[in-house]
């Protein structure tokens, strides 16, 4: 015996182009929905990873000092402010602090970079405390400098690539006219460390005539310790500013969430359009088959039978479109990632679109439920058709 599903399936095949277009509409909506929800989760995960990769949760700087290399570059290498390295002892005394590391940022002008020159940035670090905080750093070649006052550098992956340096090569610090030997090249991390040149803290202090001075203290907070309380205590130190990476993350997430609401509303509009498409397709199909439905009723079909038949058609459209959309989303996740990365103001490293089974099922169920709702009106309309009027060709629509 022919089933309800087979009848519905055959009905849809009667108008192949219309059915295909409706399925494409649902598939596109489903694709957008999966990709956006996947992006929502993936972005936060990637951002968390990026923040963790910075190695420390808090940074202390002298008031008004740009707090990392990028800002320093934007400001043309100016605006650096210094604090005494002894401050680190006050920080170490706090019970919430697990580790600290001193950093001296410095910048020199290189007149032979491009047409109008450029800034070359150097980070003075103590390899033991710095590496202990950035445990994710690994070496492509060589290792850290061993002498705290050596004229040696460790280069981030991209810095080494740009300067075509290998271990054993020399680099020249423009402006200061000082040579360094490259002793290590780091593997790519996807963080700002990739573009950084690290030198021993003592060496940079000497070159820049800043004995006992640093620009930054990186702080790793003990697990479970109250970071906010520590921040409040650190603010009592004279003339310093505290940068909490959690705050930075919260700010980014707030800014991104506004944009995400806008993007999600686009997805909702796409779904509404798909819903209207489904209603239109099924309703047109009902109207076209008015006489057929009338005959079905005449030979004993009950309104519920007609309702079920029409609803099954909706279900087939939604399931097919939904699955197709999910397949698109899975196949093109990498491409979506690249495109999102191209338009986002800031994209953390790693995958930005995270699609898992739960998300796939949630989307499919949502699409099916939305589709079934869309199918209620056409199915109800079909169920209410009066047989004689329908056969006469006057359904009163």
């Amino acid at each position, binding site marked *: 015996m022919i089933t309800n599903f087979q009848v519905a399936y055959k009905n849809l095949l009667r108008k192949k182009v219309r059915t295909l277009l409706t399925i494409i509409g649902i598939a596109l909506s489903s694709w957008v929905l999966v990709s956006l929800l996947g992006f929502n989760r993936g972005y936060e995960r990637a951002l968390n990873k990026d923040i963790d990769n910075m190695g420390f949760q808090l940074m202390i700087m002298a008031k008004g000092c740009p707090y990392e290399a*990028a800002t320093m570059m934007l400001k043309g290498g100016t605006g650096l402010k210094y604090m005494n390295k002894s401050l680190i002892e006050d920080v170490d005394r706090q019970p919430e602090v697990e580790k600290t590391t001193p950093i001296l940022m410095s910048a020199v002008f290189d007149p032979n970079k491009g047409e109008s020159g450029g800034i070359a940035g150097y980070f003075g670090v103590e390899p033991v405390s710095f590496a202990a905080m950035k445990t994710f750093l690994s070496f492509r070649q060589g290792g850290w400098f061993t002498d705290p006052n050596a004229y040696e550098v460790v280069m981030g992956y991209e810095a080494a690539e740009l*300067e075509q340096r290998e271990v054993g090569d020399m680099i020249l610090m*423009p402006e200061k006219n000082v040579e360094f030997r490259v002793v290590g090249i780091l593997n790519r991390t996807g963080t700002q460390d990739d573009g950084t040149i690290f030198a021993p803290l003592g060496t940079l202090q000497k070159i820049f005539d800043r004995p006992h001075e640093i620009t930054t203290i990186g702080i790793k907070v003990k697990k479970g310790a109250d970071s906010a309380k520590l921040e409040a205590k650190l603010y009592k130190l004279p003339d310093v500013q505290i940068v909490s990476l959690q705050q930075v993350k919260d700010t980014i997430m707030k800014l991104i969430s506004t944009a995400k609401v*806008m993007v999600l509303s686009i997805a909702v509009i796409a779904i509404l359009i798909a819903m209207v498409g489904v209603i239109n397709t099924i309703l047109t199909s009902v109207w076209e088959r008015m006489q057929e439905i009338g005959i079905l009723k005449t030979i004993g079909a009950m309104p519920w039978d007609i309702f079920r038949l029409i609803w099954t058609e909706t279900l087939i459209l939604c399931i097919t479109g939904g699955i197709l959309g999910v397949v698109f989303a899975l196949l093109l996740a990498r491409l979506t990632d*690249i*495109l999102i990365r191209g338009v986002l*103001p800031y994209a953390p490293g790693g995958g930005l679109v995270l699609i898992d089974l739960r998300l796939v099922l949630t989307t499919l169920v949502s699409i099916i439920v939305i589709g079934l709702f869309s199918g209620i009106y056409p199915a109800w309309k079909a169920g209410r058709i009066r047989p004689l009027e329908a056969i006469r060709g006057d359904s009163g629509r």
Partner: protein
Amino acid sequence: MTPALLTYNIFKRGKGFLVLAALTFILLVASSGAVWAAVGCDLNDPDRDVARLFPESTGYKTIYTSIAQKGGEKLLAKIEAGLGDRFHGIYETIDVPYTIYEIYSSKKRIGYIHGVNQKGQYGGIQVFLVLDLEGRIKGFYIQKMTSRHAGKLRDAAFGRQFIGLTIREFTDYDAATGKAGGKIAGIKNPAPEAEADFRAALRAAKKNLVLMDEFVYKAASTGGIQK
């Protein structure tokens, strides 16, 4: 990317993002390049630099290519033979992306600008050649160089010595040993103290010409990038 830059970028581009995000999903059918490729050599400011290096130009088209993409190991061997030296170091590899600026005057193609990275004594050197349609050097530009004598080697007077030369003249230059004959021997080093960087600049010029010969001038006869 760092917190300050993130925040800066978000504020700077926040408005555009909303519009662009909407377009993202429309553009999903478009394709894009690889993210983690080896480092290439691009002009810092192509609009400004093309106009300066090729004053008669009215526009340009950017073409991306690599040895891996154009012919793989076989092409690499050919290029190394043409250069007279092996590609060495961890940064001179088969997958290095090359950017060729195809220069136009109105709708007419009038030449090319192409740059290569070269290992110098104290850092990477970026050497750009301005070429006519026959592969003759019209201009020589070192975009970046770290050296105590970079100023002399980046000076226009040094670059002028290359004008008119082609790949044929460079066959007299041994990129491995630095021994030069013919017209190349006539190129004077303005900074004898920076002999290594002078040689690096010559090797970069030869490498640039050999690559352009394979990518553009020879490819024209085989249906590749048109000459």
